[in-house]
């Protein structure tokens, strides 16, 4: 089977001796929507940097759609579109110049590039801004510009490094819809993000990097199935008493909020029963954190 991305025993030691990657093995299937998670400095950006030729590897193999990056670098590069974490376009060029120039580097003729620029800039709601210098755009627009730029050569593998960092909620949701559509139309997507809700919403498979090693590489469903406990917060009517819930670990956070750990097989009916018996009124209920976030913290703490 040909994978969109296949990484074998990838290692990277930086000039100062910092061991960023300690032998990563990773396979991303064609058509997948894959999340690469990890705390800051875990090695996510180094991995992406090596795959996109921005970082020199120390050893290991990287294949993109079967093209070996050591021997078929140009063919491999043609398959990839990158949306980097930091803005890296010329602030003095216009929006359209940026996307058309980038397409040219991938062999797309100027005529075709102009046609595609209309399609992708309209899609990202930037067409009206096509003649505006990039430095004049808002943060959200700049992010969308980088996505449009990465799509101009119609890559089979789109890599997004923290694409929604600093983007407001409304725009973030618009981008999710757009990325979902793109994936449904056949583009393989690899995403790194700090918003774990984003990974849970979008991705089918997930890899977690910690200290230069891949500590999880599985489907989102099976990863979430590993979550044994969920912490819920109950907003209760202040009564001056500390509720006691037998069989559960609970903690009164303040007079109006009660934190309760609920095991997968316990259910929450019993919690309500016991609180009702004690005459405590529950006003509302919410998750303490996103499920994936809870699991992510647990996994990274275990390997820390």
């Amino acid at each position, binding site marked *: 089977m040909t994978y969109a991305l296949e990484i074998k025993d990838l290692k990277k030691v930086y000039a100062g001796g910092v061991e960023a990657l300690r032998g990563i093995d990773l396979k991303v299937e064609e058509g997948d929507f894959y999340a690469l998670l990890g705390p800051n400095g875990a090695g996510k950006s180094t991995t992406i940097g090596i795959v996109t030729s921005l970082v020199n590897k120390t050893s290991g193999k990287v294949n993109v759609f079967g093209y070996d990056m050591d021997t078929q670098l140009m063919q491999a590069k043609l398959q990839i579109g990158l949306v*980097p974490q930091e803005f*890296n376009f010329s602030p003095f060029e216009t929006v359209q110049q940026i996307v058309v120039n980038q397409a040219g580097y991938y062999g797309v003729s100027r005529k075709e590039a102009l046609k595609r620029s209309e399609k992708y800039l309209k899609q990202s709601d930037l067409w009206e801004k096509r003649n505006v210098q990039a430095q004049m755009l808002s943060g959200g627009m700049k992010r969308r510009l980088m996505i449009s730029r990465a799509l101009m050569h119609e890559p089979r593998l789109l890599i997004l490094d923290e694409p929604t960092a600093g983007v407001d909620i409304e725009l973030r949701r618009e981008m999710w819809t757009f990325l979902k559509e793109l994936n449904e139309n056949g583009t393989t997507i690899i995403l790194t993000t700090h918003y774990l809700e984003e990974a849970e919403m979008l991705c089918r498979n997930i890899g977690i990097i910690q200290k230069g090693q891949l500590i999880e590489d599985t489907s989102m469903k099976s990863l979430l199935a590993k979550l044994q406990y969920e912490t819920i917060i109950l907003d209760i009517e202040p009564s001056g008493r500390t509720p006691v819930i037998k069989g559960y670990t609970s903690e009164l956070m303040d007079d109006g909020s009660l934190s309760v750990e609920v095991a997968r097989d316990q259910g929450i009916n019993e919690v309500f029963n016991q609180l009702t018996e004690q005459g405590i009124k529950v006003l509302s209920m919410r998750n303490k954190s996103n499920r994936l976030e809870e699991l992510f913290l647990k996994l990274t703490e275990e390997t820390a």
Partner: protein
Amino acid sequence: MFKLYLTALKGLSVKETNRYLRIWIQTLVPPVITTSLYFIIFGNLIGKRIGEMDGFSYMEFIVPGLIMMSVITSSYSNVSSSFFSQKFQKNIEELLVAPVPTHIIIWGFVIGGIGRSVLVGILVTIISLFFVPLQVHSWSMVILTFLMTAILFSLAGLLNGIFAKSFDDVSIVPTFILQPLTYLGGVFFAISMLPPFWQVISQFNPIVYMISGFRFGILGVIDVPILFSILISITFIVVLYVINWYLIEKGRGLRS
């Protein structure tokens, strides 16, 4: 892949051309003003007192040198500042992630340097027409030395851009090395006028050969044998090209 590379080269050249045209006040106007002042002060005012040089009026003598000086400065600073700016703003990554071979990257920047040099060279030549009539001894020599000089100093500027870590690094070389070498390279005088010791020292200054070759193309007089002048330029071009290629290929200052 050849068609792809050609499109990439065209794209990069257009980008580079747009860059210096967009900031024409910084890139095209200053050399025109500087050389105009040279023409007025050295050529017109002081030159009248100097008299003839190699059988030509002093104004006629300095025209080829001043054109070459503007070509050297323009090609060098165009590529060094453009490459460093792209490194600084990180938009060099647009090229590094794309299937653009190192040869195309080098030539894209060099074409930008040549383009700006040609424009500046033409503007300076037009200014010179206000002072002396245009004369050309050998068009082929004029074009050959012009192009070789623009390529050579574009490559030198690229090398500067690769090593530069700050904007200071981009201005140090032109100020402390390039400008003295240009002034001592025979823009305002014939090398044969120098004392024997300094004539020997001048042989290590590559700019001497370029100005001499170009002056031969315009006036038909030479300081050094013409073939030697061409060979020296070609040698410098090849050496600089190989060094640039090696450094970009290895990702010097570009990839961690």
